[in-house]
């Protein structure tokens, strides 16, 4: 029995005694979280695709997110939607709905001639059009205060003379396996970095660049500077909170290509909110994509961005 216990002791000792020499790399957890986010994002993309052929109450939120994302960020997974939209509309439409601010101050949808490419004219901006440093991109937080988790990242550039904003979704720059892919996209798309955060059905978009455009340029004709502006504080930084209209057009399904927004149909107009601020020579914008967040919730999320970028 003693020998048995001795062997037990020796085995136990042998298996445990150098355990402390092992160090747990916390990067492993980051990798796991990154994979979880990607998994979630893929599920969301599948949900978006499925949504085009289904009708449900839940699609309203998805549509509004898709529309806003198309206009603001042109995420890669929405790109086919946009491409098809442009082709489809060009073929058969000449009049489309646009959102303008009525005489009574309310946003209304009006039918206007479809603008030809280049009709949109230049986008006004302040600041400098230059690349956002990779160090800044790497510091984009994985989560925002209030429980919002990073869902996807994108890099983009804006041709302000033609009014074009293009972007591509990118992998985590810290992911060594995806580093080359990130660098490849960064070569062409580096003027604006954006990120989408999600909590349940609420979405927040963060945009960072060295130049600032109007609050929302999602109208075909007007640049909304934002209404009901308010100055708020994000820690020691002053920021501007404002509202702007977001148009949600019906989505038309296209086999194997997702779908497109039918701007020939009257859109539903929702009021979205934005917080903008300047920090270390960069312009930051936080968008409430799901138009369901209070000022306090958006402010808390924005403050966590400020803190992570200090």
């Amino acid at each position, binding site marked *: 029995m003693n*020998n048995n216990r001795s*062997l037990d002791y020796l085995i136990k*000792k042998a298996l445990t005694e150098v*355990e402390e020499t092992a160090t747990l790399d*916390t990067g*492993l*957890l980051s990798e796991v979280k990154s994979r*979880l986010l990607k998994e979630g994002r893929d599920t969301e993309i599948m949900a978006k695709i499925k949504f085009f052929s289904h009708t449900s109450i839940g699609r309203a939120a998805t549509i509004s997110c898709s529309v806003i994302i198309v206009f603001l960020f042109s995420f890669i997974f929405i790109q086919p939607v946009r491409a098809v939209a442009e082709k489809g509309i060009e073929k058969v439409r000449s009049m489309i709905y646009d959102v303008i601010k009525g005489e009574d101050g309310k946003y209304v949808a009006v039918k206007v001639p479809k603008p030809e490419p280049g009709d949109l004219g230049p986008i006004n901006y302040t600041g400098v059009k230059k690349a956002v440093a990779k160090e800044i991109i790497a510091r984009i937080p994985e989560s925002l205060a209030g429980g919002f988790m990073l869902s996807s990242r994108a890099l983009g550039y804006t041709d302000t003379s033609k009014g074009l904003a293009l972007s591509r979704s990118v992998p985590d720059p810290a992911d060594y396996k995806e580093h080359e892919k990130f660098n490849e996209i960064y070569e062409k798309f580096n003027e604006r970095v954006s990120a989408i955060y999600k909590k349940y059905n609420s979405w927040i978009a963060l945009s960072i660049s060295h130049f600032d455009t109007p609050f929302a340029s999602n109208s075909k004709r007007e640049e909304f500077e934002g209404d009901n502006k308010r100055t708020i504080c994000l820690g020691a930084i002053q920021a501007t909170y404002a509202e702007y209209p977001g148009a949600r057009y019906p989505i038309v399904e296209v086999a194997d290509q997702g779908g497109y927004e039918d701007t020939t149909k009257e859109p539903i107009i929702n009021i979205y909110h934005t917080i903008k601020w300047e920090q270390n020579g960069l312009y930051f914008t936080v968008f409430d994509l799901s138009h369901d967040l209070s000022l306090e919730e958006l402010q808390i999320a924005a403050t966590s961005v400020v803190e992570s970028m200090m």
Partner: protein
Amino acid sequence: MIDPEIIKRCQQKDQTAYDALFKTAGKKALWTAYLLTGRMEIAEEIVQESFFRCFCNIKNLHKPEMFTVWFNRILVRTCWYVIRKERKTPEVSLEDEKLPELKDHDNGDILEKVEQNQVSMAIRKTVNSLKPALRSTIVLFYYNELTIREIAKVMGCLQGTVKSRLYYAKKVLEKELKRELLDEHIHLSGYTGYTGKECVENE
């Protein structure tokens, strides 16, 4: 024992709970994977994969208090999968392992420490030469300190199978140890032979 509250929070996708769970169970998982595969770089991949599967499926864990068994089941099966995929018998050679640094005031015990270290290395090497089922049983019993019943659940076999594997694994260990080491090393460590009795201390 992992705090069931952490598990419940993980089920609600609380990111801080993910951090807490990884911090609490991560190192044990890493060392278990290392003991089962013999290679640290593979062990890290296994830990990553296991936690990924864990977080993906933790909502299906109805009894948080069963987390240890449930998670080790994922971990061990991931190890087996990797071992099969690698198609290599994991190896830990004595040469591969660094001897613990000995401080000056330990001079009097140097010989004893070196001897003990050689015994431990020989055991680890032998454990890693066992077949995956035997190796897993030994590691789960002695390192993870799971009971026979828990090991049976982790490995998906009968408790009697676990007992017989433990018995057989210890017989192999004893035989290999005798062959690997000089008799004086064994005697120095106080070991003079295995009696072949059952091994149920954790029960």
